[in-house]
């Protein structure tokens, strides 16, 4: 399970780049990403028009803390939010908009694994809570959409990132790292309960 060196992933995320990734690999992502949370996912799922072109792009599950300073936007915190909540919406959005990369955190199950397989997409797991490290990797705020409609946390931010660190959690073949860890930990638990000495008070 040694990681030799990180893979670089640069926008636009072409089929070739994305297909060569394997679960467990460590990647550094650069280029444009689009943030979105619950409201954006529901909106796109229900067929709402998207103000940006998501083709070969990445959706980042993040509600950044962004402040206005000297007439420009400054990102104060930009950690991932839980992706699990968007799993039901994602297959349709990925398919219809040609999204190739989803960045977030937390478990995703069979639905997402299947969608990654059929849409040729990967799910990248960022480090939850690492708001400052990840904010530092945001080099520019390009634009914000739906700021009024959804609020600034739920808005669609166009962020330019550089060397944003993540781990491939689901690859294009539908292999799911978090699911694998889950299954092996459940087996390890059963083994502990079977063979381990009982606790006595």
């Amino acid at each position, binding site marked *: 399970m*040694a990681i030799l060196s990180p893979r670089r992933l640069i926008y636009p995320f072409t089929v070739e780049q994305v297909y060569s990734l394997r679960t467990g690999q460590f990647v550094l992502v650069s280029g444009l990403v689009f943030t979105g949370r619950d409201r954006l996912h529901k909106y796109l799922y229900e067929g709402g028009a998207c103000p940006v072109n998501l083709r070969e792009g990445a959706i980042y599950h993040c509600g950044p803390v962004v402040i206005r300073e000297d007439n420009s936007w400054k990102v104060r915190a930009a950690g991932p939010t839980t992706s699990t909540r968007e799993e039901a919406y994602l297959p349709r959005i990925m398919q219809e908009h040609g999204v190739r990369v989803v960045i977030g955190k937390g478990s995703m199950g069979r639905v997402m694994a299947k969608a990654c397989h059929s849409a040729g997409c990967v799910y990248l797991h960022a480090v939850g809570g690492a708001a400052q490290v990840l904010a530092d990797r945001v080099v520019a705020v390009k634009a914000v959409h739906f700021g009024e409609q959804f609020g600034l946390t739920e808005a669609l931010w166009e962020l330019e990132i550089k060397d944003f660190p993540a781990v491939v959690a689901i690859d294009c073949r539908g292999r799911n790292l978090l699911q694998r860890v889950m299954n092996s930990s459940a087996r390890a638990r059963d083994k502990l309960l079977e063979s381990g000495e009982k606790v006595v008070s």
Partner: protein
Amino acid sequence: MKNHSQWESSLFELIRRTSVDLPSDVEQAIKRAYTAEPGGSRGRWVLETILENIRKARNQDAPICQDTGTLCFSFQVPVGFDTNALAAVTRVAVAKATRMGYLRQNTIDTLSGESCPTNVAHGSPVFRFEQCARSTVDVRLIMKGGGSENAGRQYSLPDDRLGAGRDLEGVRKCLLDAIVSIQGNGCSPGVLGVCVGGDRCTGCEHAKHQFLRKVDDRSEVKVLARLEERILKESRLLGVGPMGLGGNATLLGVKIGALSRLPASFFVSVSYMCWAFRRRGALITTKGGLKRWLY
């Protein structure tokens, strides 16, 4: 309140410090977990990023995590001390810390869905007061993020699904089940706070109360200390690892407390605290002056 501004500035400083600077026992525990992961592994890389984040937050005077969480204040005050006034000035300090960006606007009106600009609302912040024979005020603050709070569990023994009976072996089964079902979803590696006994409400509260303990201490009750140690050891074998991406560092610590119970009930309440374990405390004079930091 007399000395209002003294009090406000001491409490504001407590909030600021809690939000931007992790207590050293937690940072040390993360460093130990980092050294224990094999070089080049995902777990090690995640922990390295976390340690870098902790340093950055401290140096840049910015929140460690953007989810600044539920603000849980525990006060121990001298007998007869005016706790209403204390709550009022704490609310003022919370509003100020929110204005200055140390706290995110993180409170939602549950019925209207509207965001509250100050974090001062019905049920926020959370207070707990205790009168004691003492001359200073002991205040502790825990900021508990939503992801970690969602990871909590409560079991009622006996539990058929787990084959868990009403004894410590049953408690162990619950805890191993909790660790496996939570996986990395509370931003692991974190700390389990556990209460055995109590009712549904006091059990949860006592489980959270365990987070006031330092990560590396041990329960004073021998059987609980042994169980804490055992669960921590077994959590490594489960291999959940940082962020659930695999590895040894599944948990940083396990803290178990116990309360008496009714004959008919046997609850095991589990609270999860993420690696962004924001806990600070201070001794404050009755005039509001900061006497000394705790932790």
